[in-house]
């Protein structure tokens, strides 16, 4: 594992594609400290699995697989956020992004809050969907069939739409 050339190559790869890991961290952690811990854990797990990565799948598929495996299976404090509550009652602890309108930002924040009410597995699937991954790639990362990706996604979409439609209508 202590091969300097391999380490350098890995560090470069992570520096280049780190946005992917940050997105996974934002999806699973609201607390900045927890997010940092998860980022560190994902990088360590990627490093551990890097020597055996044979480039049979895309780098991004491998990174998503390791990152989501780590996020779903890692030890984290139980969220105090109430589940199945009204979205408008939730404390929207999402960092503000520059160059965005207030309405757009509010919509995205409500989307994150709605995603917060999904299960760990559902979060993984919806994230890959929002990242425009194909059903084949989602199936490969999650370990279910392509048709079941479709089934699961339809259920998740219905859940999110039920949660989001009332608050989005209010914003309009």
């Amino acid at each position: 594992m202590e091969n300097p050339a391999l380490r350098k190559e890995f560090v470069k790869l992570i520096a280049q594609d780190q946005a992917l890991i940050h997105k996974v961290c934002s999806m699973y952690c609201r607390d900045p400290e927890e997010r940092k811990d998860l980022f560190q854990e994902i990088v360590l797990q990627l490093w551990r699995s890097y020597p055996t990565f044979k480039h049979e799948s895309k780098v991004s598929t491998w990174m998503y697989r390791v990152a989501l495996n780590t996020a779903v299976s890692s030890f984290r404090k139980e969220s105090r956020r109430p589940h199945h509550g009204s979205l408008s009652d939730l404390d929207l602890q999402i960092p503000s992004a520059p160059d965005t309108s207030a309405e757009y930002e509010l919509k995205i924040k409500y989307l994150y809050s709605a995603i917060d009410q999904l299960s760990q597995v559902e979060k993984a699937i919806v994230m890959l969907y929002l990242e425009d991954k194909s059903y084949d790639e989602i199936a490969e990362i999650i370990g279910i069939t392509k048709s079941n990706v479709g089934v699961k996604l339809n259920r998740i979409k219905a859940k999110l739409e039920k949660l989001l439609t009332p608050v989005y209508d209010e914003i309009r």
Partner: protein
Amino acid sequence: MKLDSLKDAWQVYAAQTAAVHQVTEDQISGLLKTRTQNAVTKLKKNMYFELAMLLFTVLLFGVGVVLVQDDMVFKILCMVIVVICLPFLGYFLGRLQYLRRLNVTSENLRGTLQNLTEMLTGLTKLYFWSNVLFAPIGLAAGQLVYLKLGEGINLSHLPWEQLSLRLIIGFVIGGVFGYIFLRWYIRQMYGNHLKNLRGALHELESLEVAA
């Protein structure tokens, strides 16, 4: 509201917020020097502690077997403890080797959840039952060791009724309290985590079964 209509907005927003948290190559190199904090690491720490305790016990009572010549009961007690601990020492070493080789990220999410659930269930069971066995043995033997080393009593001269009563009391108290404490401890350490892992795995497997 359609989720598809939010795809572009989400991608832009997620990329912008990811940029806010961007780290440098030096910081990434620094992260590689830190230690992982996952369930396997936690379990490994417990295993190392267990191994250290077992090794200490084997050495301590092994010395007793060799050095104590005037008290046959105490010598037999030391031998029994060593004989009980040795197979566990070997088994824990084997499990530790297995844990060190285990890579929880080499499979897809379903495979990883399966591996982790099986491994955590098996190892927490081993940890629980081995300690449920050690707690009464430890308490029963501890009393006799105290009588021998603390009070200077030759155990061979103790009446059999008194000796067996002390052993039985030690076994019962150690067994009951050990069982209650270990159930609580394992639930605190791994209970919720294992429940979450099983829940996530069930969610994926039920989907396949339904299909």
